[in-house]
């Protein structure tokens, strides 16, 4: 394994972890409501930008980060209450347009509240690269990988061991049956938006020191997170994580070895290729259509 390969692998894992967090957000909302929330990328933007402006006003990271996550979660809850809930029962296309309208609205809002410039966040713990097997890794990349791992573990505990998590899982399997055993499915839907928004915000904060942030970072990150969720199979938690990591690694490898000009296109080429042969993604449910 050459040092160059190792370098691409580490970079790919870091980017992939961010895609995985965004993809998890897509999957959680999809499971609760069968809605694809195209505003997911905007939560990433809000997380990063809110942290930038809070630390800019003098708050330490210990306060600024939780506040930014809470802010994004509140936006997520508001989105569910005022845009998705009133349109319940609408068609897939209608819901797609509503969430895209929401993402345009949030981007416009960010442009007015903040500005159009690029912002950098300070790395959490310095920026001296650490050498691993001939490759250099930024401490911030370790933060990205560590926090993502912790979140994945926390989520699997949440969905496997807590009552609320089990209720959310039950709703995703069968909404009507969940309602019949007394689960408040509307509350599940509401909370899923808050949880997804918080996950997106975490991703946005983690990546901001590495790639900079601005009011429009959400577009590409949102689309790639969606691609990762589809790659893994919509609604599958493991699928979202593996899809995200695979996409990140494939993207970095092909940018390194093939063509860096087409770096952003590679995610979409992969997704088309996979969908041509596996129409439900890698881990998706293979259900037939019922008449």
């Amino acid at each position: 394994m050459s040092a160059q390969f190792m370098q691409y692998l580490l970079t790919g894992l870091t980017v992939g972890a961010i895609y995985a967090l965004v993809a998890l957000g897509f999957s959680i909302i999809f499971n609760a409501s069968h809605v694809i929330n195209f505003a997911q990328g905007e939560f990433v933007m809000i997380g990063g930008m809110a942290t930038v402006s809070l630390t800019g006003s003098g708050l330490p990271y210990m306060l600024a980060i939780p506040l930014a996550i809470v802010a994004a979660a509140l936006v997520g809850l508001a989105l569910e209450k005022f845009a998705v809930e009133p349109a319940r029962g609408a068609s897939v296309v209608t819901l797609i347009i509503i969430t895209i309208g929401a993402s345009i609205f949030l981007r416009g809002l960010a442009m007015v509240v903040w500005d159009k410039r690029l912002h950098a966040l300070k790395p959490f713990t310095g920026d001296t690269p650490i050498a691993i097997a001939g490759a250099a890794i930024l401490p911030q990349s370790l933060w990205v990988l560590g926090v993502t791992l912790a979140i994945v573990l926390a989520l699997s505990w949440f969905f496997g061991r807590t009552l609320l998590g089990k209720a959310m899982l039950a709703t995703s399997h069968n909404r009507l049956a969940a309602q019949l055993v007394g689960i408040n499915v509307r509350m599940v839907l509401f909370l899923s938006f808050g949880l997804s928004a918080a996950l997106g915000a975490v991703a946005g904060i983690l990546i901001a020191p590495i790639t900079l942030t601005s009011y429009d970072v959400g577009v590409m990150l949102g689309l790639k997170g969606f691609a990762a969720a589809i790659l893994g199979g919509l609604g599958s938690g493991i699928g979202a994580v593996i899809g995200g990591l695979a996409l990140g690694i494939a993207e970095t490898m092909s940018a390194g070895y093939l063509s860096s000009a087409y770096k952003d296109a590679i995610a979409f080429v992969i997704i088309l290729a996979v969908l041509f042969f596996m129409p439900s993604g890698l881990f998706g449910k293979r259900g037939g259509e019922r008449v």
Partner: protein
Amino acid sequence: MLARLASPRTGGMLALAAVIALLPLVLSNKYFYDIAVLVGLNAIVCIGLNLLIGYAGQISLGHAGFFGLGAYGSAILASRYGWPPLAAMLATTFAVAALAFVVGRPILRLKGHYLAMATLGLGVIIFMVITTEDKFTGGPDGIAVVPFRIGGFVVQGERIWYWVVGALLLVAVWLALNLIESPAGRALRALHSSEIGAEVVGINAANHKVMVFVISAVFASVAGSLAAHYSGFVTPGKVTFLHSIELVTMVVFGGMASTFGAVVGAAVLTTLPQLLAVFEDYEMMVFGAVMMGTMIFLPRGVVPSLARLLQTRRQRASADGEEEGA
């Protein structure tokens, strides 16, 4: 005779022709003509897209890609290689149709969100090829396009373009209305309600879906070619994901499965950003809010909602009349 006139086909076509003929009375300057031409071009794309979304029940989040291929194909062949514009447009249209045919079959096997992802990906890939291959396309800066000419006649100026686009819009509507009433159109509507049901009665769902996908791509490509020659310049701005979304929004806003709805949607949403320019910094917020608001309150779209309102009113009126008679 009267019943024929009141039918959406003949009556609607006549009404649209009348609007196109009379509109110049209120278009007082070049700027208004310019908007009218843009409305017409978007309407042509939306009529094709509506066949795919509204009638066949599929979705495409990448149609700006086909629009862009049409625009850049015409621009490159006519301006860089000196082809006659009409030949450039026809060659581009055939190439886009061939591309749509090749990718259509594997893409349209997908359903729902997976189909949305695949078409979105296709559009993004086309956008990136256009912005990256700057030797041919001029990259993000775009390229200049020669005026459209047929023989010795040059199509130039907003007023002449208005009549050209108006005439083509009528042709597009006529084609769409005829397709919908044909056996192929009925097959599309059948597979919209149930693909398996349609196959059971002998409809080849895959072939029909590919056919409508190719038709909608051709409409977008032709509109793209014309737009390039009309504005004399193309940039990747019209090939973005956002433009694909705008096109879908026009179709859904006007009303799915309504050809005239597609025209109304294109008219309203093309004019809206011009009006919103007064909001300056808040323009984006207002546009997003309008998108959300119309979809929440009029999920069926404007034209079907109005048609339903008129129908219930008419029924109520006739019910009242019967009561009085009895």
